């Protein structure tokens, strides 16, 4: 590098003075080592709790993901699993929760909520199969109900995935894998009419290791037009996803033990489903020296047909217990925030933010008895209109270099309007909640911060439960569930970068819920249950000893109990991840990641527990030339025969005379390989 002329000393002084004298603005990113060292984004001075973080595109791309939902496992402590066919929403575990299909984990993609409330199959249904990993710019997460910005389903955590407005290079890639896996994707972002047109197309097929192949077929696409910059500009996005699959649902252990069933066999080979998601959304942002505004709006059309059979022949020995849970909905909504940056002195600055959220869901769903996907009886049919509005105000103040506070309050009102085929189960209900939150951040040393967080959060209950008088299946009288269920969380945290090239965070938390959502296996849905308390500790460590090598290790342990002392079925206790990632070793890059999914109680008295499962995934990439890369991904390298999920409930197989309580499991996929060729230009 030629040194053309020494830069004037005054210039250096100018920059130094600028950097030292300038308080960071909320709209400005605080200087990050990522720019000059490629390190993980530091959260010192940014995050309000030890559990919050941000994962960049390069780190996400370095992960091996068997399915798109596993990208969310970049959030330390989160386990993403699957107990059925690939097109179904994943099963999530976090902070001592069995989150079922996403309850209590709020997931957002580009300003659009992914959780579907009052869903036919599970409250907060989170189907992220429409994600296109190559477009993801970053994943921001936080755990616990400590932010006034978070509303429904965010008590365990909140994950926000942002797509880029433009790509640095156009991409085409082809993947071929074992078990009938093929994927092709194409994405680019040409300039158009003074803006940028981002497009992406994806086609995926996966049979899986199942005796009856999943035959999952995905067609996915997105189109976005954007103008300006992310912080000063706008974008309009259209997305379309369609998936179709067969499902191998969980099978009883007894049948595998006696050799009646193979580990990858299905019992009802007509289980499965198809899903469609279409959305139109827009984001507008304006960021200035004194204030910042953001407005987003969306309309989402979701359509799901889901056929499941978890109890086989227990309820109907002749036709079997297959049931259908169709759900068709249009979700529309808008979010607005405005922040004033108030600079009170050289060291003191405040951000005052107000925000509003509106969401309306127009839902038609049902529960039917089916045989081979043919309807034989109607259990219930409902038309639900669920409308919610929320407002918050939050004041984040940096009192001096060593002290920050965030004080917030939010109010949410929900309206549930259910027209059921059973008049007694029709009606309207309303609920309102005010949720305060407070965070205190102490930074006595430049590289270490301590956090104290307290806040209230909530999840909404299924609208049908808020007005129901009778169980449509048993005709037993039901107690109406509250619309909104309060959670209260508190947390002590520590984050330090005192050891060079290492980022460490520790959280100790407690989370109380007024009512636990419980999964009812034979009904295939969730219902409001007892109050609960969780106490847990989380440790997250990222170490980049060398420019080309990083090591990350996360571990979490949680103790979850109902208020009567019972265990909470499926509540995850210990989880951990250990990963070695290397990059730019000449043309080589790669990663090796071990995931530990600890044992869970499967029943309230803890007499039946699941086994832990440990998986080792890896990838090796080779850059053939500047625009061409070959990558080999390997899943379950040690070929463990563990469970992806376990349940304990009663079922009855054909030929059995009475129901039997048993563990029902879905195995993790055996070792498999995928090869990807990626061309960029």
């Amino acid at each position, binding site marked *: *590098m*030629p040194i*053309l*002329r020494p*830069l*004037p000393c*005054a*210039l250096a*002084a*100018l*920059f*130094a*003075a*600028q*950097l030292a*004298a*300038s*308080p*960071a*603005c909320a709209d*400005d*990113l*605080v*200087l*990050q*080592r*990522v*720019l*000059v*060292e*490629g390190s993980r*984004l530091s959260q010192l001075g940014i995050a309000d709790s030890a559990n919050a973080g941000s994962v*960049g*595109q*390069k780190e996400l791309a370095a992960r091996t993901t068997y399915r798109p939902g596993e990208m969310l496992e970049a959030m330390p402590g989160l386990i993403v699993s699957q107990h059925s066919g690939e097109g179904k929403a994943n099963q999530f575990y976090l902070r001592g929760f069995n989150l079922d299909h996403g309850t209590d984990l709020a997931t957002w993609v580009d300003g659009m909520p992914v959780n579907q409330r009052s869903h036919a199959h599970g409250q907060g249904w989170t189907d992220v199969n429409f994600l296109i990993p190559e477009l993801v*710019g*970053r994943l921001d997460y936080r755990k616990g109900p400590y932010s006034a910005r978070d509303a429904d389903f965010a008590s365990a955590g909140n994950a926000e995935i*942002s*797509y*880029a*407005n*433009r*790509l*640095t290079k156009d991409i085409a890639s082809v993947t071929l894998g074992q078990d009938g896996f093929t994927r092709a994707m194409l994405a680019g972002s040409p300039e158009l009419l003074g803006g940028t047109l981002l497009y992406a197309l994806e086609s995926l097929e996966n049979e899986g290791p199942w005796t009856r192949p999943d035959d999952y077929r995905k067609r996915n696409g997105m189109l976005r037009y954007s103008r300006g*910059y*992310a*912080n*000063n500009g706008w974008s309009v996005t259209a997305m379309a996803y369609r998936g179709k699959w067969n499902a191998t649902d969980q099978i009883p252990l007894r049948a595998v033990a006696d050799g009646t069933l193979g580990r990858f066999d299905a019992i009802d080979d007509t289980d499965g489903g198809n899903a469609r998601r279409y959305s139109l959304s827009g984001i507008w942002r304006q960021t*200035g*020296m*004194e204030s910042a505004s953001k407005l987003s709006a969306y309309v989402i059309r979701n359509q799901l047909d889901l056929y499941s059979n978890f109890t086989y022949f227990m309820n109907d020995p002749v036709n079997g217990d297959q049931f259908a849970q169709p759900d068709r909905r249009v979700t529309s909504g808008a979010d607005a925030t405005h922040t004033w*940056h108030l*600079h*009170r*002195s*050289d060291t003191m600055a405040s951000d005052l933010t107000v925000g509003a959220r509106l969401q309306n869901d127009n839902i038609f769903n049902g529960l039917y008895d089916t045989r081979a996907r043919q309807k034989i009886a109607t259990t219930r049919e409902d038309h639900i209109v669920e409308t919610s509005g929320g407002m918050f105000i939050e004041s984040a103040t940096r009192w001096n270099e060593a002290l920050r506070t965030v004080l917030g309050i939010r109010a949410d009102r929900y309206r549930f309007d259910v027209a059921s085929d059973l008049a007694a189960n029709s009606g309207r209900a309303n609920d309102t909640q005010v949720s305060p939150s407070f965070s205190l951040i102490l930074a006595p040393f430049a590289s270490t911060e301590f956090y104290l967080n307290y806040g209230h959060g909530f999840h909404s209950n299924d609208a049908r439960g808020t007005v129901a008088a009778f169980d449509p299946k048993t005709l037993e009288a039901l107690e109406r569930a509250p619309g909104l269920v309060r959670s209260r969380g508190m947390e002590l945290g520590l984050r330090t970068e005192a050891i060079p090239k290492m980022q460490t965070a520790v959280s100790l938390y407690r989370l109380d819920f007024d009512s636990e959502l419980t999964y009812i296996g034979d009904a295939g849905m969730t219902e409001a249950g007892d109050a609960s308390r969780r106490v847990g500790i989380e440790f997250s460590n990222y170490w980049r000893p060398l*420019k080309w090598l990083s090591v990350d290790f996360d571990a979490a342990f949680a103790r979850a109990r109902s208020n009567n002392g019972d265990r909470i079925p499926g509540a995850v206790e210990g989880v951990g991840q250990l990963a070695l990632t290397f990059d*730019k070793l000449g043309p080589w890059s790669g990663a090796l990641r071990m995931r530990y999914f600890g044992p869970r109680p499967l029943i309230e008295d803890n007499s039946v527990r699941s086994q832990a499962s440990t998986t080792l995934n890896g990838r090796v990439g080779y850059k053939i030339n500047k625009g061409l890369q070959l990558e080999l991904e390997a899943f379950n390298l040690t070929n463990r025969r563990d469970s992806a999920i376990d349940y304990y409930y009663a079922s009855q197989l054909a030929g059995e005379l009475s129901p039997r309580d048993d563990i029902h499991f879905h195995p993790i996929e055996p070792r498999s390989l995928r090869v990807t060729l990626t061309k960029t230009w």
Partner: protein
Amino acid sequence: MNMKHLATLAALTLALLSAPASAHLFHVGITDISFNARTGNTEIVHTYMAHDVEALLANLYGRQFDLTDPEDQDVLRKYVEGRFWVTGQAAGQDKSRLNLRWVGMTADAERVTVFQEIEQTPLWKAGAIHDNVLVDFLPSQVNTVNLNEGNAVRTLTFDRNNQEQPAR
């Protein structure tokens, strides 16, 4: 450094430091252009605040960048080359852009420095300079271009309202 150059910098420094306490981060860039008689090339050194470049790239591409990575450097290169150029001297009837060769760049925690050169071309052949690097992203961005010719330094200031100026 001659007195004029020093005075320019001192004035800029004073202006920035005397800003009211309520003011926000200032956004400045400095470009030094000089002729290297030994090589016969006109050499250009841009210095920008790392904070501004990081925010720029993050808001353009929605992700973080590592400016020690050649592929990520290419992205900044594309941006700078699209917003800084020098045209030939009007008197020579050649107003086309002079060929700016990308020499390289460095980045540290405070600043990003970009090196370009116009091969085998003396500075006097420059007719006009266009500079809206970061200006399109940050409304308050001010870029100072110092033209070093012999012992004389002339300073041009580029901002949202002044994106192209004659070089002489």
